[in-house]
């Protein structure tokens, strides 16, 4: 049954990768890439149960953390355009109206 889950995740991964490469907008790419990251975590989790090497869950955990941090970093880039001020809520207002993609 683990195998079924793994195959399903691999299929998901390939479809997400295809979207990441096809675009067409940069947001499509980022959404697809984010999806890819989440699914990789799941892949490792299932893989560790498949092979019975449960210490690999540490890896999945690190992936999840890193994924979280890079998503936050990306959001910062979107909402602030810089890394040195604190995160705000409704910042995506006037100053970001420009198109940068």
């Amino acid at each position, binding site marked *: 049954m683990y195998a079924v889950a793994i195959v399903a995740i691999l299929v998901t991964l390939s479809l997400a990768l295809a979207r990441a*490469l096809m675009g067409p907008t940069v947001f499509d790419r980022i959404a697809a890439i984010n999806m890819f990251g989440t699914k990789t975590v799941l*892949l490792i989790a299932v893989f560790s149960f498949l092979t019975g090497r449960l210490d690999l869950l540490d890896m999945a955990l690190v992936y999840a953390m890193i994924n979280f941090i890079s998503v936050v970093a990306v*959001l910062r880039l979107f909402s602030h355009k810089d890394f040195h001020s604190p995160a705000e809520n409704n910042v995506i207002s006037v100053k970001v109206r420009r198109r940068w993609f």
Partner: protein
Amino acid sequence: MDLLIDISLLTFLAVTAIGIIRITNLFAVIMLFAIFSFLSATLFMTMDAVDVALTEAAVGAGISTVLMLATLALNKDHNEKQPDKNRHWLPLAVVLTTGAVLVYGTLDLPDFGDPASAPQTHVAPHYIEKAIEETGVPNIVTAVLASYRGFDTLGEVVVIFTAGIAVLLLLGGRREDPLDDGAKDKRVPQNLVLRIVSKIVIPVIMLFALYVQFHGDYGPGGGFQAGVIMSAAIILYSLVFGLGAAERIIPKSVLMFLTSLGVLIFAGVGIASLFLGGNYLNYSVLASSQVAGQHIGILLVELGVGITVFAVMLTIFFAFAGRERS
């Protein structure tokens, strides 16, 4: 099943790499690079290199990606200029030649997974058979890393230290007073969801980093990975609560001190073993029995690695994030 995963991952890698060449939006390129890094880390994991996988995920997809994004954040334009089509043939020729030579070189390479090949029969068996009794550390990678090839690891810590010094030399010039941000912190509305979530998550990450640090003798992990994860926690804090807030927790002077401290701990263990009559980094002389000495040595050395890596990663991130957008 392993084969299926292997081949799918390799295919994904190849597709991602082509994507990176073709896509001109740098933002997407960096995100794809993070994917590339995740994928290769997963591949390392399926090939039993757990420690390497942990490091690659934390470094490649974590630190490198964040640094690349920080660089991009200083840039208004996120698109690469389309390269000149006529200039392609020379690089292509160089690359194809190099590739052909490499393929020629693999013709005599031992088969994948061959247990009779030279690497599997010459030096490594000694580590696999003797490491546990000579060092008492079950994780053979840690034993080799910290003891047999401990001097390489000292070099590695010094490389990281050098990177810290180099980035400070390049980007440390303009010092803003971090306390200036204090007023701003209160004025602007904060992203509530992110803040609360981070408050929950950051301690967990830090705890996990400590687990990786001290569990490195028995499982995947060690000072390097722990340092990176710990610094990732502070980086997250800095991203959510602002650079000023983060620098108030760990001022730059403390970071500078920690950076040096780690290297000095590592090198100091070596000097201590000189004084106790052993060769440099011979931990066996640190205690009455060899295994106990090795244990103390490896623990201290890993601690040194962890401290320097943590401090340097943060120094580098702060240096990047503190730069004004030009």
